[in-house]
């Protein structure tokens, strides 16, 4: 998948909210990318934009998303629906609100399979549903087919969501905060599960989360977002060991760790800017501890500063070819 210059905005009474601005990313089969950022940085909107789930007053205002040699943003509704849930699947943060409480688990997963794989035979459908439930680690799957979402625990529901997402062998999986509402031991289970399934299906995964520690272990590449823009992108090792952008550095310094007690954690003064009234120049400049004069005037370009390491910051120079 290639995302080029994607921009999504919400047109509200108070002004235009530039939720995602000029985002470009590449992802190949079998790779995992982590999209990291705090609340309001646009990461969820990015995920939804790829699935074309943006509803008014939101609108994708610019860019292309090339998948399987076609631009998703130019496809008609019918084609998109075929892809959604089929080639591209999405898991959401709160499984309870994504699962319909009045239908059984079996019927909900079955519906997805029916839509995309066009299986009419009830028996065959049931077999497939049981198979996928077992695959995600739900024991006693046959019995649980006829149960309702509220009868499952949080971790279980998330597994069901994953089952639904994987039921049609997607090439690309978007996981939007899949473990945020789960306990940490359950989070470990779910991430482990997703990791195993990734190996088996060789899907590309985009993991959207505000928990940067999670991506350290799980992702190959990391993109850090702030106020709608990607401010740093590289492979995982570079981001954690060799972070360039002041925001990335500050975030990493502010994390409480279980392997050490820090005298004082790094803090970032101020608050995230309103996406309607972004500051002039670099979006991060009012809070940046390393800023220079030019930062409040000109928006830095997003360039490659080292091999496979991109950032938008005036402190760094683009590598010469």
């Amino acid at each position, binding site marked *: 998948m290639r995302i080029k210059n994607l921009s999504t905005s919400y047109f509200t009474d108070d002004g235009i909210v530039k939720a995602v601005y000029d985002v470009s990313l590449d992802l190949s089969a079998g790779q995992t990318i982590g999209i990291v950022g*705090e*609340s309001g940085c646009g990461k969820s909107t990015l995920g939804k934009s790829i699935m074309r789930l943006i509803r008014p007053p939101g609108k994708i205002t610019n860019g292309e998303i090339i998948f399987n040699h076609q631009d998703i943003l130019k496809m008609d509704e019918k084609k998109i629906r075929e892809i959604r849930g089929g080639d591209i699947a999405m898991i959401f943060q709160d499984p309870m609100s994504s699962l319909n409480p009045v239908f059984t688990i079996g019927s909900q997963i079955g519906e997805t399979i029916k839509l995309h794989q066009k299986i009419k035979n009830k028996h065959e459908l049931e077999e497939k549903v049981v198979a996928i439930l077992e695959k995600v680690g739900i024991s006693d799957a046959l019995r649980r087919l006829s149960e309702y979402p509220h009868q499952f*625990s949080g*971790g*279980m529901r998330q597994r069901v969501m994953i089952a639904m997402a994987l039921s049609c062998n997607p090439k690309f999986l978007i996981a939007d905060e899949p473990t945020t509402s789960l*306990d*940490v*031991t*359950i*989070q*470990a*289970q779910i991430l*482990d599960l997703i990791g195993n399934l990734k190996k088996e299906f060789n899907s590309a995964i985009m993991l959207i989360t*505000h*928990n*940067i*520690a*999670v991506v*350290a*272990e799980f992702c190959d590449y990391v993109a850090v977002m702030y106020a709608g823009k990607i401010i740093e992108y590289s492979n*995982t*090792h570079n981001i*954690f*060991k060799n972070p360039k952008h002041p925001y990335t550095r*500050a*975030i*990493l*310094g*502010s*994390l*409480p*760790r*279980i*392997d050490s*007690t*820090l005298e*004082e*954690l*790094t*803090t*970032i003064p101020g*608050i*995230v800017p309103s996406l309607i009234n972004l500051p002039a120049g670099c979006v991060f400049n009012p809070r940046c501890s390393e800023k220079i004069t030019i930062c409040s005037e000109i928006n830095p370009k997003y360039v490659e500063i080292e091999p496979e390491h991109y950032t938008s910051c005036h402190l760094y120079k683009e590598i010469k070819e």
Partner: protein
Amino acid sequence: MNRTVARVSAIDDVSFKIYEGESLGLVGESGCGKTTLGRCILHLIEPTDGEIIYNNKSLKSLNKKEMKDFRRQSSIIFQDPFLSLHPRMTVGEIIGEPHVIHGTARGKEKEKKITEWLQKVGLNPYHIYRYPHQFSGGQKQRIGIARAMILNPKFVIADEPVAALDVSVRASIINLMKTFQKQYNITILFISHDIAVVRQICNRIIVMYLGKIFETAKVPELFDEPLHPYTKALLSSVPIPDPDVKKERIILEGDVPTPINPPTGCRFHPRCFERMPICSEVEPKKIEINENHSVFCHLYK
């Protein structure tokens, strides 16, 4: 007419001490009872059995005046910055409320103390006329902290104070609380599901599971030498922001069970990777490994 539908035992036979001046962390996942425990300690919920003893007096035995006095010396910081502040009161009124309730300061003197604490938590004095909804999550939490601190309490319970905040804001709140604890020598009970945060603030930790205490230890020791299998699993599940650290992940089977029908014997036995036959029958008793470290597990003697 009352009908008992089910007995949900949130906390079961839990005993521990909190020492003056210490910063004790209470860690556990959902359903472990830590929030309920916090509420019981402040007598916001009445325990079904057992006592909370403060300054040699049982809370149950306190009369109205003594209880009010207890409330003056203790305070709580809540998880939800939004709903823990009265939406119709100004920030000044919210922070000043403890003084109003206890009659400890009035008029100009009260206003002075309010502005003092506003500044101590990093906000501006002119904020006293604003309303909570005009502030960000981190700022609201600072207001909550100012309110909890204004009477210079001896004992503060912090119930997941940073869970609802953004990562970059958490750090400043954690730093703030650490500073206050040292400066004013307060005893803190820090309740959290995030053991990494607890490590930054606390010097002793209690690990809870399904209404029971599993392990208690001083901070570096709990992380360097965890004894209980659950503690080990818990620590191994926490992601570390360092791709080079190769972790031996212990993945637990099954879900966190509900408190409604807890397992027999040791409550962790269905998911324990080191279980023995005795674990499903007999509840483990407290084993003191050394004066700072105790554990409830049959693996130890």
